[in-house]
């Protein structure tokens, strides 16, 4: 029976994030002999102790507390060699996406990222050309490292159980040429793409165009957009055109940075609901919406090519008016709560 290694990195509390639990569940579904490998300052494997793994391996210590290519790759390589796995499943996190392709090379295997489905017969689904072409593929190279996108498998939810964790040694000498200083939020301090948010709000270029009164009302647009994002605790995304305008130094909507961008060179978020406003355009915009489950749009063009057939509901209306009312309703609901 093939050995399947689930690889997880722990969070500050020693536990695993939701994406990791989804990857664990996907690994369990492959049907081989499951081995759990954990990396972090410390690990608490009891929370997933009932997952049925034959072994629990861990690389721990201060050097492995922070995400860093050299130490993460060394830890993952050591665990993978100790496990002797043919398939390695991990969550598509920035940490593993940075390190695991290099680890696959060290192990003589192959890596596939942004995998959206994984079946027991060895078929993996992923998208090519920025979510425009869907493929189902296989790998003969072993070990096969699979980075699973968030939201593509149910999260493991078994009962905790005490387990014995085998400590694996990974080299630390010479691996600390890079020091992680910390984290910084986007300069605007505003939320960008928050995977935990229920709603994604996408601001299109229409917000910066002349409105019915012939005036450009970017100040009002900023107030409405940020007001909604704060009240609804929504993720904030923007189309590429808006981001480019910001990047070119125009005083358009300066709080929108490249981190807000969805679509071709931006993110392709996964939220339960998405509300697009003043977005026009075809495929590049649609790309950013591929994985939004319920989609609604507000814009002035009833024939908008991207919204028709892609959104569930298209409100042909002035987004300024609609969002002002939406914000009033959300504010009233919050005040009454």
């Amino acid at each position, binding site marked *: 029976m093939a050995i399947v290694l689930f690889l997880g990195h722990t969070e500050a509390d020693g536990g695993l994030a939701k994406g990791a639990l989804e990857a664990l569940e996907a690994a369990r579904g492959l049907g081989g002999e499951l081995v759990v490998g954990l990396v972090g300052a410390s690990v608490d494997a009891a929370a997933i102790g009932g997952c049925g793994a034959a072994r629990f391996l861990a690389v721990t210590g201060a050097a492995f507390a922070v995400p860093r290519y050299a130490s993460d790759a060394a830890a993952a390589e050591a665990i993978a060699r100790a496990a002797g796995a043919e398939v390695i499943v991990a969550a598509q996190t*920035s940490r593993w996406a940075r390190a695991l*392709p290099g680890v696959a090379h060290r192990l003589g295997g192959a890596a596939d990222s942004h995998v959206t489905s994984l079946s027991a017969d060895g078929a993996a689904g992923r998208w090519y050309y920025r979510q425009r072409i869907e493929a189902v593929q296989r790998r003969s190279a072993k070990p096969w490292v699979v980075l699973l996108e968030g939201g593509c498998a149910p999260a493991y939810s078994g009962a905790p159980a005490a387990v014995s964790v085998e400590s694996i040694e990974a080299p630390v000498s010479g691996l600390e040429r890079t020091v992680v200083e910390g984290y910084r939020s986007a300069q605007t301090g505003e939320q960008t793409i928050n995977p935990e948010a229920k709603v994604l709000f996408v601001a299109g270029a229409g917000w910066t165009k002349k409105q019915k009164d012939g005036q450009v009302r970017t100040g009002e647009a900023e107030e409405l957009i940020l007001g909604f994002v704060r009240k609804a605790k929504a993720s904030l995304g923007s189309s590429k055109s808006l981001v480019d305008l910001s990047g070119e130094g125009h005083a358009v909507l300066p709080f929108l940075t490249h981190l807000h961008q969805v679509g071709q060179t931006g993110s392709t978020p996964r939220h339960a609901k998405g509300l697009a406003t003043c977005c026009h355009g075809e495929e590049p915009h649609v790309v950013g919406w591929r994985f939004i489950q319920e989609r609604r749009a507000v814009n002035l063009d009833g024939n908008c090519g991207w919204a028709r057939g892609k959104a569930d509901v298209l*409100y042909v209306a002035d987004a300024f008016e609609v969002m002002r009312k939406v914000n009033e309703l959300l504010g009233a609901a919050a005040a009454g709560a």
Partner: protein
Amino acid sequence: MSYHIVVCGGIVPDPLQTLEPAPGAAPSLKNEMMLPAVLDPWAAHALYESAHLAKKVPGSKVWLVSLGPKAKLQQVMMTVAQRAAFELVAVDGPSSGFTDSAAVAAVLAEAIAGIAGLDRSRLILAGGWESAARAAGTTMQVVGERLGITEQFQGVDELEVLRDGKLRIAERVEGGRHQISVCDGPPVLLGWATGNLGEPANNPQLGMQNMRTIMPALQKARSAAVGSGGLSFDSVSLPKQQRQTRIVKDVAADAIAREIVEWMAE
């Protein structure tokens, strides 16, 4: 310290083109050779950021290593050459997104290793953190591994050279944040996201200057076969989802707002 900056950048179909898979055993795009191509958007950011750094640090030099069909590379370079100063290292081969990233990495690493006069102790190896073709973000790490570079960063938006020569790097991580790291210095690998620079304006004079080295580089581009890496495809298809869009017109903003708020609360 001056830098030797090598940017890996492939070519991809212009993002505004409609793409369809072509029928056949090996996956490819319909009319792939006819589609207008551009330098991969993320690689382009890597190139612009690298050229900007080289301009700021005297004695630095930028190479652009690109794997693609020679004719398409020539077409793309006519535009790219006007935007940044670099020396091209061209490799004639497939630019398809359906090729294996590790096999592509092997070709790129070999091309980089063969650059005459490249000082690896001063090497900043750059590229896009993903491509608009394979969209995997798995190539650069393997190029780095093959060249022995263990200081690797992905989703880079900012690079700052500190007074002591160390490099401070901002990488995109979850939650709209940047992870800030300080690295001792080269050799280092930077997989750029979008960075902070806008697309440079076309500079025909720079283009003419670049083309003097680009044309010979294209002429002597060696052909490279890209292995499959044990990758095979069961299916390659366009998504078929088409939604029945309900159009709501001539309705007061109040009513629309109420409907949106109720929908959000569901």
